[in-house]
């Protein structure tokens, strides 16, 4: 049995523990915030009778009571086999997660929690995070130090001696090696991530909605009006250029702010206990710990703009970590930054440079042709539709002339997509690269491959091509080597999973 280094020290009879008492300050606030729409409704509904204020006060009191109750009814304990969490007053629930199922631990804290020295700890298991049984357990509101101890106890295989005083064993902390750390200069890559587009979209959508609710026409707003007047005097082309520049600037600013919020203080370390540790965040912090024996590879991704800027990001392919999106995903090993540094992190994490540096085998002329035919098919549909519209007299000629612009764009896209295609099998990994708008180089551990799919569509069969997909329990669950010649697919399969196909061979 592994002795716990930190505060929750279960002996033979593990005691039930409460969340941090400081959560008594947080839960009520959270409940009130969550109940805000209902409270607002009460005020409005009660305003007719002049009792709105009183009803709202009762509502606030109820929310505070519910928040307080939450602390009194939540308990957890760590037994030698399980992590157990007990919840509820009337509807009691006990959730137990087997300790050998623990894949990842996510420790996050929003500014409110941070001010009180608290964190939220989520235990991730290999099970998908959906369905009634859900993935793991979440402990909302532990003392930061308790959480660190709990994390070490749950993930580090090596049993550590409990230190007197119940603090984290210092030797383990000292032995952590740092693999990467954010350099402020990397903020320059932020505008190329375009994450600001989403932010602006969300804010813009919200504002338009709000304006619509109060029957406000944005055209009558002073700022918009004046901007319109100022641009009204200049030629249309210039006006468009100015507007585009303004949008680009706004996106760049928002992207940079978002980058700083998500990745400030980023640090990647390796603990000799067999875990990788990613810390990041400016206001809300997040620390993800990944057990290395659950790591099935890494993925380098280069969105088009970031690629032009010479940047890349790096994500973990691990069981228990799905492939999320944006800053929310817990798989980040390296934020958008210099490509060389991202590649270096990938090498360090994999403990071998081969998958990152190996020359990839291109997929050949027929795969290239398929990229072009697919891209042109899309653009042909657009042109045909626009042309039909012009003939029918629905749309002006500028529409189909504009649609013609997509033809060279499609050609450029196809050329880039064809260039991206490549694969290799190294002593440890299956490497597959594809994509243009987001180019991804997946380096999947060969041991992590738990099945092979060979897909041939009607047109692929005519071209003698085949898409090989390696399925795995980690990350995206399936990694494809697209449009390879059929014999090459078999060769890749043999090299990646030796012997699997032998009995199914002809002759």
């Amino acid at each position, binding site marked *: 049995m592994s002795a716990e280094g930190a505060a929750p020290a279960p002996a033979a009879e593990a005691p039930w523990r409460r969340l941090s008492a400081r959560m008594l300050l947080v839960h009520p606030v959270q409940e009130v915030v969550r109940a805000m729409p209902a409270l607002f409704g009460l005020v409005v509904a009660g305003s007719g009778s002049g009792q709105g204020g009183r009803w709202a006060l009762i509502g606030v009191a109820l929310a505070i009571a519910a928040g307080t109750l939450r602390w009194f009814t939540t308990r957890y304990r760590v037994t030698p086999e399980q992590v157990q969490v007990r919840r509820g007053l009337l509807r009691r629930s006990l959730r137990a997660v087997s300790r050998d199922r623990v894949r990842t631990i996510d420790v996050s804290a929003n500014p409110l929690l941070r001010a009180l020295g608290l964190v939220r700890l989520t235990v991730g298991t290999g099970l998908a995070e959906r369905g009634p049984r859900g993935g793991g357990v979440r402990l909302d509101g532990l003392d930061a130090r308790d959480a660190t101890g709990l994390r070490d106890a749950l993930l580090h295989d090596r049993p550590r001696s409990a230190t007197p005083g119940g603090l984290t064993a210092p030797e383990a902390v000292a032995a952590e090696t740092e693999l990467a750390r954010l350099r402020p200069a990397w903020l320059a890559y932020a505008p190329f991530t375009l994450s600001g587009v989403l932010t602006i979209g969300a804010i813009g959508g919200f504002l338009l909605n709000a304006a619509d609710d109060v029957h406000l026409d944005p055209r009558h707003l002073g700022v918009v009006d004046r901007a319109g007047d100022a641009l009204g005097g200049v030629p249309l082309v210039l006006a468009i250029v100015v507007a585009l520049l303004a949008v680009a600037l706004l996106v760049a600013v928002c992207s940079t702010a978002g980058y700083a919020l998500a990745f400030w203080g980023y640090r990647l370390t390796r603990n000799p206990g067999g875990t990788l540790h990613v810390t990041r965040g400016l206001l809300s912090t997040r620390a993800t710990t990944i057990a290395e024996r659950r790591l099935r590879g890494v993925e380098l991704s280069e969105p088009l703009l970031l690629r032009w800027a010479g940047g890349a990001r790096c994500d973990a392919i691990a069981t228990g970590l799905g492939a999320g999106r944006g800053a929310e995903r817990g798989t980040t090993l390296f934020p958008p930054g210099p490509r060389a540094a991202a590649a270096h992190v990938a090498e360090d994490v994999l403990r071998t440079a081969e998958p990152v540096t190996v020359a990839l085998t291109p997929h050949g002329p027929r795969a290239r042709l398929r990229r072009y035919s697919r891209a042109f098919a899309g653009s042909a549909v657009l042109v045909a539709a626009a042309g039909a519209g012009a003939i029918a007299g629905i749309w002006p000629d500028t529409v189909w002339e504009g649609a013609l612009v997509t033809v060279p764009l499609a050609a450029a896209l196809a050329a880039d997509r064809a260039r991206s295609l490549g694969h290799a099998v190294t002593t440890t990994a299956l490497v597959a690269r594809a994509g243009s708008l987001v180019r991804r180089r997946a380096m999947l551990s060969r041991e992590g491959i738990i099945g092979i799919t060979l897909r041939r569509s009607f047109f692929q069969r005519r071209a003698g091509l085949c898409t090989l997909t390696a399925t795995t329990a980690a990350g995206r669950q399936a990694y494809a080597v697209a449009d390879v010649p059929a014999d*090459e697919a078999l060769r890749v399969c043999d090299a990646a999973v030796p012997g699997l*196909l032998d009995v199914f*061979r002809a002759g």
Partner: protein
Amino acid sequence: MILGPLTAPDVPAPDHREALDLRPPRNRVSARAVRYWTVRASAGWAVLGIAQAVWLVLASGGGAWHAIALVVTFVLAAAHVTVMPRWRYAVHRWETAPGAVYTQSGWFDQERRIAPVARIQTVDTERGPLEQLFGLANVTVTTASAAGALEIKGLDREVADRLVDELTAATQADAEDAT
């Protein structure tokens, strides 16, 4: 594997292996599956056809266009219902070897899936009401990957039961962590 030591050492064997193609799996699914697929596809087309017929009767103007649409639907349906089930029967195949399960499915687009027995997590059979009528069953073999399930559709019921027993036994013999 067994032939390894017998090959002469100067034969550059590995480089010529790609000449050996992957053969399709050995076993076909039940022949009754053809009828089942025909009935199922016909039912789908019938819904569309009836909807169009009703439309033709109810709509007063543009009757010619409605009639043409109905004829087109009928031709497409006839082609699909005659070609698809036979094509699919020719493609759908399965095989189990001591170390792996191998399936082939699809018709217009085709797919071959191979999973090592050591990585199998669950083996299920499932029968819809229409399939029960034809004495058919589907077998689903799942692995720890959400994208890795192998499905064998249109098996004879007894064959499906036997296959599940066999695979379950093989999986239990191999009790390692399959992720």
